[in-house]
């Protein structure tokens, strides 16, 4: 296979991880909303934890984006 073609395919495969992280982030906020609507009084106190979960889920997607960019531009 041509190296250029292999690079583009590899970057595309790495970008799948971004979609997976989108599922994760959606899950974090969705679950938070479910909990918050059942007990609105407790929701405000848990916003810090919400964003910790968001940050952890988002980081993995961003890493796969960085891998795709490294494959495309740096290798």
């Amino acid at each position, binding site marked *: 296979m041509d190296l250029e073609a292999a690079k583009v395919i590899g970057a595309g495969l790495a970008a799948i991880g971004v979609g997976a992280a989108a599922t994760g982030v959606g899950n974090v906020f969705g679950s938070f909303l479910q909990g918050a609507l059942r007990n609105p009084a407790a929701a405000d106190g848990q916003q810090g934890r919400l*964003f910790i979960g968001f*940050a952890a889920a988002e980081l993995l997607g*961003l890493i796969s984006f960085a891998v795709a960019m490294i494959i495309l531009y740096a290798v």
Partner: protein
Amino acid sequence: MSVAHTSSAAEVKIDPMHQFQIDTIFGADGSPFAFTNSSLWMLIVLAIIYVFMMGGMKRELVPGRWQVAVEGVTKFISDMVQSNIGPEGRKYTPWVFTIFMFILVSNLLGMMPFGIVPGVHPFTVTSQFTVTGLLAIISFSIVLIVGFWKHGLHFFSLFVPAGAPFVLKLLIVPIEFVSFLVRPFSLALRLFVAMIAGHILIKVFGYFIVQGINAGGMGYGISALSFVFIAGVGALELLVCCIQAYVFALLTSLYINDAVNLH
């Protein structure tokens, strides 16, 4: 990547990485002390923060709008630090506030459409790994220094979960150790990649607008769609700018909490 179309319009090459290039403004090229566009935009960020803070620190008895804005930001950060670290957290509020303001203003400044003025080009300070890495290393150093200062070698008990059986501890302690060491890296990477990703996305669709207009015919429709898309993504990016600044400050205060209170 050559698109097969028969239009005679000039091909515009998509180059989304150009906006992150560091140019020397004055000083020797390549020297570590050269004054670059990154330094210039850092100074602009500091000037904006200075003006913002000084405008609201007049201590009027009946606060005006400006003072309410400044007090809102300070209260937001000091409440966050208090609730995460506890009463001992007051000492660390200045550092958390500093990184929050610096990251927030430089993120937002990088999103501003200064590009419509020819020759002016906004530079996002936080899109460089060296800058975010340095901020993360300073935060991490505070954690290490405070941890060893307050607890001595007892600080290592951070890696040992209380009440876990011995066999499980053999497994958990190395994992906790690695996840502790990765903290500054993940802190810096998150901010830097989030900024880079948004800017690349906007830039690529900006090129689509130009290419669509050059192609003519159906291209105008694609340009219009891209423009609507950019407007939406721009709004999302403004949200991401604020969330990333908040997450950086929040995680810093959580890590400091680990060092101060050990669980």
